[in-house]
């Protein structure tokens, strides 16, 4: 059989629900969005796929949050990358293209944890990291021997030092940046994968393994220079789950970032607060804020959130470390979840008080049982899910999907709205800003 020609591939990121699907919560979040504008960034998964696609194949990238899909174009392949809350829309898109005889392949975290479900809607599923699998799929497709599932060998992970530069070049073709409603104000870079903590609610360890794998510093430098060339002035968003796990590597990286003259944001755990030298370097290298997953300030919650109680052991140092981070000019953007098993009606006030006392802003979310997580399996055994699966479009992190142990669902939703209003109002914003301004004035 002769080789099939691939001329045109369309890669799609399906429309997301930016806020909640619960009316009252959605209304509150939208009202307060002036004080916490949403950050928009292109899909790093799709940019990575673009980087892996042979340059003689034309690629179209559609971010459905920003533009409509034209279902009349005759692509050779449509690729869809979806997180759980996008996946139902992803399946609709797949269905529309398949009715026209177009081959559809899906990747992303949802299809990776539920490949059999995805295969009911698409022709092929890429399970897990795409670096080795996408080029293989392309070759097989050309030779008419494409498989239903592409997955890595059990226990093996991609060598990131061999990862290509994501297709940042592609962003030159898009003119999203001046749209007042939607635009990319941050461009993602991923320097590492893997996390040792294996938290109950999270899929990172399951999907990327517990071993910390990283790109070389030179690779990162090339990627950032490419972004500076293609999207000048954009903030770099490190998509790593924890940029500072390897302190020596982090120091080398920050030293290079200082030369590159960028502003950046990243995720970290709170123990970074114990390293004044790294924090100083983080500010000098353009660090703006660190998103830190505190998750809870209830010791009983933290004891059980991961097996080795790592987060619980940090609790006593939360405030001192926050103060040290912010004194070094890096804003702490805390992440908290409501609805954990030891949360009762006091949790909302406790978290608001903690955030106000420590002068931090952040994101408040509702604990979400993602498919593939240990949490969803436990909740099923305990018969606590409010709806039967699939409830994927409600996995927004702002919707109650299971019955908490120590309060009702109604109390959880009302408490969440109350806490959100307490944190995101002009009075709280002013207090935090005054504190941070005084910090900046000392170091500028």
């Amino acid at each position, binding site marked *: 059989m002769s080789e099939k020609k691939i001329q045109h591939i369309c890669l799609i990121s399906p429309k997301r629900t930016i806020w909640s699907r619960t009316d009252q919560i959605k209304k509150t979040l939208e009202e307060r969005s*002036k*004080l*916490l*504008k949403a*950050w928009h960034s292109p899909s790093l998964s799709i940019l990575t796929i673009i980087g892996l696609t042979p340059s003689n194949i034309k690629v179209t990238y559609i971010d459905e949050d920003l533009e409509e899909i034209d279902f009349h174009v005759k692509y050779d392949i449509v690729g869809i990358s979806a997180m759980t809350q996008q996946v139902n829309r992803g399946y609709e898109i797949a269905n529309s293209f398949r009715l026209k005889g177009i081959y559809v392949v899906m990747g992303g975290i949802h299809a990776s944890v539920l490949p059999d479900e995805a295969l009911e809607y698409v022709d092929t599923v890429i399970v897990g990291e795409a670096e080795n699998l996408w080029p293989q799929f392309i070759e097989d497709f050309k030779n008419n021997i494409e498989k239903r599932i592409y997955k890595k060998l059990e226990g093996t992970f991609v060598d990131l030092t061999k990862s290509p530069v994501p297709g940042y070049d592609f962003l030159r073709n898009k003119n999203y*940046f*001046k*749209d*007042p409603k939607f*635009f990319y*104000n*941050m461009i993602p870079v991923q320097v590492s994968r893997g996390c040792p903590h294996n938290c109950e609610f999270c899929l990172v360890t399951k999907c990327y393994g517990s071993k910390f794998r990283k790109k070389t510093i030179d690779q990162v430098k090339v990627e950032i220079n490419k972004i500076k060339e293609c999207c*000048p*002035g*954009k*903030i770099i968003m490190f998509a790593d789950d924890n940029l500072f796990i390897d302190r020596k590597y982090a120091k080398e990286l920050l030293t290079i970032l200082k030369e590159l*003259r*960028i*502003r950046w944001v990243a995720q970290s755990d709170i123990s970074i607060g114990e390293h004044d030298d790294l924090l100083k370097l983080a500010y000098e290298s*353009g660090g*703006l*804020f660190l998103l830190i997953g505190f998750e809870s300030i209830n010791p009983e919650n933290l004891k059980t959130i991961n097996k080795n109680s790592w987060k619980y052991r940090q609790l006593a140092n939360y405030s001192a470390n926050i103060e040290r981070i912010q004194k070094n*000019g890096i*804003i702490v*953007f805390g992440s908290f979840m409501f609805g954990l098993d030891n949360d009762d009606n006091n949790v909302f006030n406790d978290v608001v008080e903690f955030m106000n006392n420590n002068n931090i*802003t952040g994101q408040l979310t509702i604990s979400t049982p993602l498919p593939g997580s240990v949490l969803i399996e436990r909740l099923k055994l305990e018969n606590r899910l409010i709806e039967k699966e699939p409830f994927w479009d409600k996995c927004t992190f702002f919707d109650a999907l299971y019955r908490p142990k120590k309060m009702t669902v109604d109390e959880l939703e009302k408490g969440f709205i109350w806490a959100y209003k307490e944190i995101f109002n*002009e009075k709280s*914003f*002013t207090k935090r*800003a*005054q504190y*941070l*301004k*005084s910090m*900046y*004035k000392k170091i*500028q």
Partner: protein
Amino acid sequence: MTKNKMANNKDIIDILSKITRIDSSGITYDTLIFEELGIDSLMAIEILARVEKQFDILIEESLMIDISTVGDFVQTIEEKINMGN
């Protein structure tokens, strides 16, 4: 003349350039603060701290919320400075 009376547009744009790490030649009055310079409410705090310190004035923290262009920002700061705060 007091310290704050000596400010000019260039000083303010230089501050924006220093904080955003975007060359001042790429910043014009029409440049969009949030969309093009990436200045959100968090980076705005750092900018206001520097403006306050350099020009010896005080600025309400909520000022950035309704500002959309560099021109709006420069004008607002100049008004503050000329009013002697």
